[in-house]
């Protein structure tokens, strides 16, 4: 899966995107976020409080219980502040 980060999420994890292998333990977006939080450091900061984050799967708004599949594009970002 291609995992993307935007705004302060990108700054905290120190990168804009990375490849994460799909696995049975990463059934949902929530599983992926918990795994990323456990990496510690900037990841723990970014994913420590998931209420502060929004997520999209394959460029559509998604939730913590959205089920993941191999090849998915998963993006984590703060609430949008456009215009």
């Amino acid at each position, binding site marked *: 899966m291609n995992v993307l980060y935007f705004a302060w999420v990108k700054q905290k994890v120190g990168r804009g995107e990375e490849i994460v292998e799909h696995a049975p333990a990463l059934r949902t977006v929530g599983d992926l976020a918990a795994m990323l939080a456990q990496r510690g450091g900037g990841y723990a900061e970014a994913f420590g409080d998931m209420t502060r984050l929004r997520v999209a799967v394959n460029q559509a708004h998604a939730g913590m219980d959205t089920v993941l599949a191999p090849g998915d594009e998963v993006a984590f970002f703060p*609430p949008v*502040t456009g215009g």
Partner: protein
Amino acid sequence: MITNIHIQAEDFDVSDEIAALTEETPQTGAVATFVGLVRGGDDLTALTLEHYPGMTEQQIARIAEDAARRWALTGITVIHRVGRLTPGERIVFVAVAAMHRAEAFEACEFLMDYLKTKAPFWKQEERGGAVQWVEAKLSDDAAAERWRRR
């Protein structure tokens, strides 16, 4: 219905954009537009805007289609700039062309409310030397929410 959507670092010219929108639609009688500027004051030095390439364009296209279903329109242009912008610079432009003004005004406001609340853009503020991400505003959410009830 003409639809133009551009996410770009470059500035735009409002007259040129209106002309491009209306030249091919002789039935257009009304064009409502909105220009958002970087507001000066409060020691603001600059804004930096980031977007989600691909998803942002797609979301705006969907919102434009939604507007075209709700109102009788002849054209929509949305331009949103990204990158670093200083006070007085244009950030966002929406133009809605229609036969009649009520439809043009409503659709223009609808598109702006959605751009502010739903489209994947993130804004960073520079004040003096300090840089900070802008938090989402509840008043913007309320503005977008009112369109649900219609």
